[in-house]
């Protein structure tokens, strides 16, 4: 694998809830057009770390951070950065599918296109189609775009959320356990999707499922007790981990 440029990186990032530290001092870089997996037991801080990257963490009451997050070399926590604009460049898919219940399938995907820069109607329609194709959902919904998003199955809803997230063409896509509430078939569709999505985006996925990390990611980072224990190429981390804790976790001895 050729070396790729770093799209988003953290420098000594710590994330706190009030006085409780959830992420400690993590320095990590994520290369462009790769799938990066964050693994570790529950409560290890991987989700909080992910939410710090698009400044969602600070919306939690008591949430604050120290350190830096660099997107294309610029600190996203600088006072010049508008967090709303940042979140259009760093999109996020959540654990549970969250289609907007009052909106149609089309309007759900278009939701992110109606904020920020002005777009024409035809431009929106075109982008929605591209996004749905990108999320491998177009063929299933093209005849019922006006229908409620709640009419879709759980797996389809999650792919709809992926479409909604990629429609504004972010640079980075964060996925927080996106398959945790899906059946095996829905999980497989999302995993397949990641392979095509990474050609266009930088992808960071938090997962509980080590097999999933091994299947879909190029690099894997192991978090434990709020700290980063080990990071590296996925194959190497799973076959010959450098640290004892990593080996213990991936062989199922704890977590």
């Amino acid at each position: 694998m050729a070396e790729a440029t770093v799209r988003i990186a953290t420098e000594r990032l710590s994330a706190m809830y009030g006085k409780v530290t959830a992420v400690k001092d993590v320095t990590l870089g994520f290369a462009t057009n790769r799938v990066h997996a964050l693994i570790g037991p529950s409560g290890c801080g991987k989700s909080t770390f992910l939410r710090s990257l698009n400044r969602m963490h600070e919306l939690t009451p008591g949430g604050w951070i120290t350190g830096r997050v660099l997107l294309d070399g610029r600190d996203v926590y600088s006072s010049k950065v508008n967090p709303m604009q940042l979140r259009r460049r760093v999109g996020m898919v959540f654990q549970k599918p969250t289609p907007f219940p009052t909106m149609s399938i089309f309007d759900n995907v278009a939701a992110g296109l109606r904020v920020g820069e002005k777009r024409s109607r035809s431009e929106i329609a075109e982008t929605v189609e591209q996004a749905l194709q990108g999320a491998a959902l177009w063929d299933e919904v093209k005849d019922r775009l006006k229908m409620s998003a709640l009419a879709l199955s759980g797996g389809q809803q999650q792919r709809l959320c992926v479409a909604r997230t990629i429609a504004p063409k972010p640079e980075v896509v964060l996925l927080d356990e996106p398959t945790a509430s899906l059946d095996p078939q829905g999980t497989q569709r999302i995993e397949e999707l990641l392979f095509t999505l990474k050609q266009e985006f930088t992808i960071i996925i938090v997962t509980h499922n080590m097999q999933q990390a091994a299947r879909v990611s190029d690099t894997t980072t192991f978090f434990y007790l709020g700290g980063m224990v080990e990071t590296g190429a996925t194959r190497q981390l799973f076959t010959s981990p450098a640290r004892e804790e990593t080996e213990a976790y991936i062989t199922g001895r704890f977590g």
Partner: protein
Amino acid sequence: MVGLMAVAVIIAVLPLLLILGTLVAKGASSLNLAFFTELPVPAGETGGGVMHAIVGTLMIVGTACLIGLPLGIGGGIYCAEYPGSRLATLTRFVSDVLNGTPSIVVGVFAWTWIVASQKHFSALAGSVALAILMIPMVTRTTEEMIKLVPHTLREAALALGYSRWRTSLTVVVRTTLPGIVTGSLLAVARVAGETAPLLFTALGSQYLSFNLDQPMAALPLVVFTYATGPYEEWHQLAWATALVLILVVLVLSIAARFATRRKFTQNG
């Protein structure tokens, strides 16, 4: 146990059925087209209607909605958006106190501040009194409804780069709109039947009036006047008017049902 609960349900529903039954039995015979389209006739004559009071109730309650609903819904959204703020805590406390305040006290308040200072009774004073009764109800139900919207939905909108207020209005409030409308309608139905606050504000009138600055008739006031009057025909009219009042509330509720019917069905 099931038997006991069935008995409890019957006892709970019985008053409603008895009220409706009595109203229909005693009032329905006086209902005809003239009752809805004509004005009252002098005592002793038969016939006439309560159109002035139907129009009056719609005007007074409508104006109360214009004042009360924006304030109530806005207050509810604020309390839900900033739940820990001092203003929200204060709003909640004041709303709870106001919810328990007898409506006649609100009427006296409106009389003191509007009627006494203007030196004449007016429908607007009645609307203000009813709005004051509506606001706390609407504020509390709006807040409770918004709190039911899952947090994940709010986060999804914020993660798309929505501002906080845009998230709140286009996603959260929009999702909970049927609930807010239902809560508002309950408040409307509740104040539409209020009599005490109108006694010293809108006062009542024998004539058809569209002037909010003047006394105006209202259905509850007509019921009150006719029911306490000395003539048997009046008592008949009071029953019929009470039935109309119930019907107006019923129509409002049904209209709301239609207005808030889900745009989509769950299964497409």
